[in-house]
């Protein structure tokens, strides 16, 4: 009896990450961990849309669960371990600060596959993924410059980390690709989420002549201020058209659904492998939200063309010549920045008014 039970337990292939076995019959369980409440817009909301896409695409073949508002750190480790021991076979940890907790739990559960968003540490059963948000920013900057009368745009940003700096630089480069004199004023709020502060920052930028405002923060405050004051905005994370029906031009949004569906399918088929995915327009991971009625047809077509060029690789947002703020050449004409250089970006391009 004991022997046969042991044989039974040994029966599934020892190679943990091979195809699913009889032991895992029934729907495949997939877990998601979110850093903030799902809410109605924002970073975690976009991941939740991805989870819903998995449900929609795979129906009864999967059973997805999520835990929201999980603080980075010790709490995250507890939640991820709980999901692992609950029989989830694939776990998406969707915030940068989950990196070490995810790796730690992954070590203890070698048969479970983990996916960590925006991180850089991997293991045999831990893959990483992120999106080239800056591609969307580049096109958004171009649209903003086309809609701006003053040529001055404002950016309300949270913290000067590379991901945010990339966005500001790409927005500026996009703007200057159609208006070489365009200026982007940067104001830091030192908080990912403080609607009041974001509002005050936008007020200041508008008072200083900025007539298109974008942001890299998690609330919908910017779209609302724009609507109140009749100033155009470009939203981030999620479509915020309903907060700025007359003024929110578009939004740079993250779309995780296709990636999640693909990864879950791969895990089901046993073809899942660890690695790093950094997708952009080409992979459908970054999209621009539907344009506001205020955006003229010519600009829409121009944007569509740029998106197509970025997707097929003929246009790279960080292609030389690029100068830094002081006008010193940083990337030579004809050269383009490598992924590593982009990922570590800590300087502003010419046209940005602000300090890191």
């Amino acid at each position: 009896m004991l022997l046969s039970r042991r044989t039974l337990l040994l029966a599934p292939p020892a190679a943990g990450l091979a195809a699913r076995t009889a032991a895992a019959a029934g729907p495949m369980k997939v877990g998601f961990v979110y850093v903030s409440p799902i809410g109605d817009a924002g970073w975690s909301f976009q991941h939740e849309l991805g989870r819903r896409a998995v449900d929609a695409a795979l129906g009864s073949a999967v059973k997805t669960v999520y835990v929201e508002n999980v603080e980075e750190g010790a709490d995250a480790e507890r939640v991820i371990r709980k999901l692992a021991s609950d029989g989830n076979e694939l776990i998406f940890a969707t915030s940068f600060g989950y990196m070490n907790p995810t790796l730690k739990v992954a070590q203890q559960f070698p048969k479970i596959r983990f996916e960590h968003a925006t991180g850089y540490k991997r293991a045999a059963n831990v893959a990483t993924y992120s999106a080239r948000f800056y591609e969307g920013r580049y096109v958004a900057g171009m649209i903003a410059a086309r809609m701006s009368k003053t040529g001055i745009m404002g950016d309300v940003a949270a913290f000067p980390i590379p991901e945010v700096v990339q966005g500001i630089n790409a927005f500026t480069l996009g703007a200057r690709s159609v208006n070489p004199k365009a200026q982007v004023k940067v104001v830091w709020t030192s908080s990912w989420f403080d609607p009041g502060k974001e509002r005050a920052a936008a007020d200041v930028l508008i008072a200083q002549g900025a007539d298109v405002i974008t942001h890299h923060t998690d609330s919908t405050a910017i779209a609302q201020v724009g609507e109140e004051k009749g100033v155009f905005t470009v939203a981030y994370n999620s479509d915020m058209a309903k907060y700025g029906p007359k003024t929110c031009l578009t939004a740079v949004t993250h779309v995780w659904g296709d990636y999640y569906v693909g990864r879950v399918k791969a895990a089901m088929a046993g073809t899942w492998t660890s690695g790093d995915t950094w997708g952009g327009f080409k992979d459908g991971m970054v999209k621009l939200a539907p344009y506001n009625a205020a955006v003229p047809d010519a600009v829409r077509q121009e944007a569509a063309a740029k998106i197509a060029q970025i997707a097929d690789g003929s246009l790279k947002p960080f292609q030389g010549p690029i100068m830094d703020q002081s006008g010193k050449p940083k990337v030579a004409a004809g050269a383009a920045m490598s992924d590593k250089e982009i990922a570590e970006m800590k300087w502003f391009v010419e046209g940005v008014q602000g300090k890191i």
Partner: protein
Amino acid sequence: MHDAAMLLAVLVATLRAATPLVLAGLGELVAERAGVLNLGLEGMMLVGAVTGFIAAVATGNLAWGLLAAMLAGAAMAAAFAFLTLGLRANQVATGLALTIFGVGFSALVGNSYQSQPIQGLATTLFPELSTAGPLLQQVLLIDPLVWLSLVAPVLVHRFLYRSRAGLILRAVGESHDVAHAFGYHVIRIRVLATLFGGAMSGLAGAYLSLAYTPMWTENMVAGRGWIALALVVFSTWKPGWLVVGAWLFGFVTIAGFQAEALGLSVSPQLLATLPYLSTIIVLVLISRDRVRLKLNAPAALGKPFNPAA
């Protein structure tokens, strides 16, 4: 002309940023003057913000929203008063619990309201706003609650120092036993002061959700309750200094944004610390006289009153 407009913009933005701090701080100041230390400001502001928002959406009338917010804040304060003044629970622990409760409760009831866009106070009162010139816009954006934040400190000051009721309230905060011996109803006075504090916190929350950033999102108060609480102590329980502290805090924040937007080369980390740093320094300078601080601090602050003793 351009400079004048810019200066005006900074001043107006300062007043607006300071409004929730002034309103919530004044309420807490009155409560503390009566000897009640309520650390639940953040929670009361959040519940006020969400209740005001829901009421405004449901009735389509912002005035009802503001009223509901004040009632909600007062209801939270009533729970606090019942526990600390009625059952003599520890005020610090109860206040913290009130904040934790407020954070969770507001998130729960506000969950389905997160997506609702709403017209804010300024645009409702002045619908022609978005077509007005920038200068006019700035002035018009001073909504009634900002005006209230200018008038309320004067009224509170007059009440505390120029009225008999204020004198009694301060007496209760100084020594409840003596006040009791004089025949004043200590508990009733403290309950009323606590309720006032709750209503003001609720109003401050509603200012955020109905006027400053007309929307509801979880945790949108973002720590302002704690700042208001600190301002009360640093202002040595004086309404005038409280307002100065709130304005200073707002001004340094706005001026920092202004400097960044102008392209001045200042470290963003330093600018982010400056509002806290400068407010602390100024208010510490105000209160550096230990004797005066001791004279101003309500002596019975946070102490339970036991009439039988």
